[in-house]
């Protein structure tokens, strides 16, 4: 199914390239139709063939190796960011579920936090990190990118988990109360298991968001070694080597898919304990 969807996208690309205007077009006075010449829209097979050629003339390895190593670098950052974001998100959700007043006070600020443009935030995080001195600990540059990944990832996790934790039916909460169960017991024996169906999509969103955060942070802080940096570098060569940037763009897309895929695999393993959902 996924392969079919990819083929379809490729087919649409080629179809538009075939029928679309060479130098772009205007619609009701707006220049909205993209140009279809080989610089703006290289052929799909050219993008794929580009993977086999070296990054620059004379380099020993094909570009796919460079993209793969950049993706691996960014993957580790995204994973770090995702784990941090998930922990923060879970923590916030628990506190908000515990204290209604915290939810009312904090949730609006969490929503606002996501409207801050990441591009503007990235340099700030780098400079804050640079000023941070905790004994021997020195803030590495890559950590800023991971933090920005966490910044995007925590939000869906916090909101989804909060929704899940409060989804336990009132009768079940009353039952736990009748057993004089502590809040902690209710959290682990009732609220968390009841939250799992909400948690999985939240984590999937968080996983892909952490990739977006890391890629944008790499671009705006100029962190070298990752896929984001490759995208910006290759984009500068678009006039001379239009297919090149797409090798890195697809690498970033694969990264997001890989992260979401990991959550899906975790979900499948959890699903073994949730047979009633399969049965429905």
């Amino acid at each position, binding site marked *: 199914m996924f392969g079919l969807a990819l083929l379809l996208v490729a087919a649409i690309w080629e179809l538009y390239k075939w029928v679309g205007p060479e130098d772009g077009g205007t619609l009701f006075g707006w220049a909205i139709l993209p140009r279809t010449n080989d610089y703006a829209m290289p052929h799909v097979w050219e993008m794929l063939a580009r993977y086999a050629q070296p990054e620059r003339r004379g380099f020993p390895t094909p570009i796919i190796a460079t993209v793969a190593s950049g993706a691996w670098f960014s993957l580790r950052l995204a994973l770090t960011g995702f784990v941090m974001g998930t922990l923060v998100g879970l923590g916030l959700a628990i506190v908000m579920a515990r204290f209604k007043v915290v939810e009312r006070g904090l949730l609006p600020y969490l929503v606002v936090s996501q409207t801050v443009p990441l591009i503007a935030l990235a340099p700030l995080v780098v400079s804050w990190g640079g000023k941070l001195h905790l004994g021997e600990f020195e803030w590495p540059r890559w950590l800023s990118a991971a933090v920005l990944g966490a910044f995007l990832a925590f939000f869906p996790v916090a909101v989804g988990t909060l929704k899940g934790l409060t989804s336990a*039916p009132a*009768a*079940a909460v*009353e*039952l*736990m*109360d*009748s*057993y*004089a*169960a502590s809040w902690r*017991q209710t959290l682990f*024996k*009732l609220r968390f*298991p009841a939250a*799992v169906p909400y948690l999985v999509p939240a984590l999937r969103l968080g996983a892909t968001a952490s990739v977006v955060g890391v890629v944008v942070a790499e671009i705006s802080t100029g962190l070298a070694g990752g896929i984001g940096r490759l995208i910006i570098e290759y984009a500068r060569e678009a006039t001379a080597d239009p297919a090149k940037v797409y090798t890195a763009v697809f690498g970033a897309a694969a990264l997001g898919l890989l992260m979401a895929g990991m959550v899906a695999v975790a979900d499948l393993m959890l699903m073994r*304990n*949730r*047979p*009633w959902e399969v*049965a429905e």
Partner: protein
Amino acid sequence: MSAAVEVHDVSKVFNAGRPNAVEALVDIDLTIEPGEFVSLIGPSGCGKSTALRLIANLLEPTSGEVLVNGKPALKARLDQDYGMAFQQAGLFDWRTVAKNVELPLELKGWDKAKRRTRALEMLDLVKLGDFADHFPWQLSGGMQQRVAIGRALAAHPPLLLMDEPFGALDEMTREHMQAELLRICGETSSTVVFVTHSIPEAVYLSTRVVVMSPRPGRITDVIGVDLGPRRGLETREAVAFFEKITEVREALRGIDTSDLA
């Protein structure tokens, strides 16, 4: 021996002091002796569920005093002196049937082997011994409710509080469950407080039927029922059964429900 439940001059006002204040219960007095089966019956809004929640200490009375086993209701709840069953079986989908029954024991800190043994005992009691490792969604509504009863009785509490536990079941299952409940209570010698809005159900099960009326919720009548200890199909067809049903119905008819429609 202290009474199983003592309710003295209890009133309950929701949203007290605000314009939307509701007098749910006024001057409730009720004493239930160990071994009794007491039903609370009345039209919706009469506060019967509220009364049950006050006994369970899931709600605090606005005034008055509730004692369970001679202790304040809060202490009784902390000591888990009662088990509770609701209209919805409320089983946890992610736990097997046996694990659901184990839940109250787990919360009390029982060790695993002891918990399992007791859970299997309880499942035998409710005749679901073969379903220990099934999941709740694999059971019918009546079976789920039986699991819930097993769970309520797992810690061997002396008192069982039930809030319309058979309200969602069909008539056939319902009559069967009523007979089963009487058998189980006989075997465990539990005291039961049972909320229902079915007159035959209240009469069939109870040793006393407490008739309540709304606005504000109060007790208007208490009707003793003596149909003998062994109640089978013939009980439901006995003249005495129908006479009691008529008596309860007339007590309920005395209640002005014109403002409820």
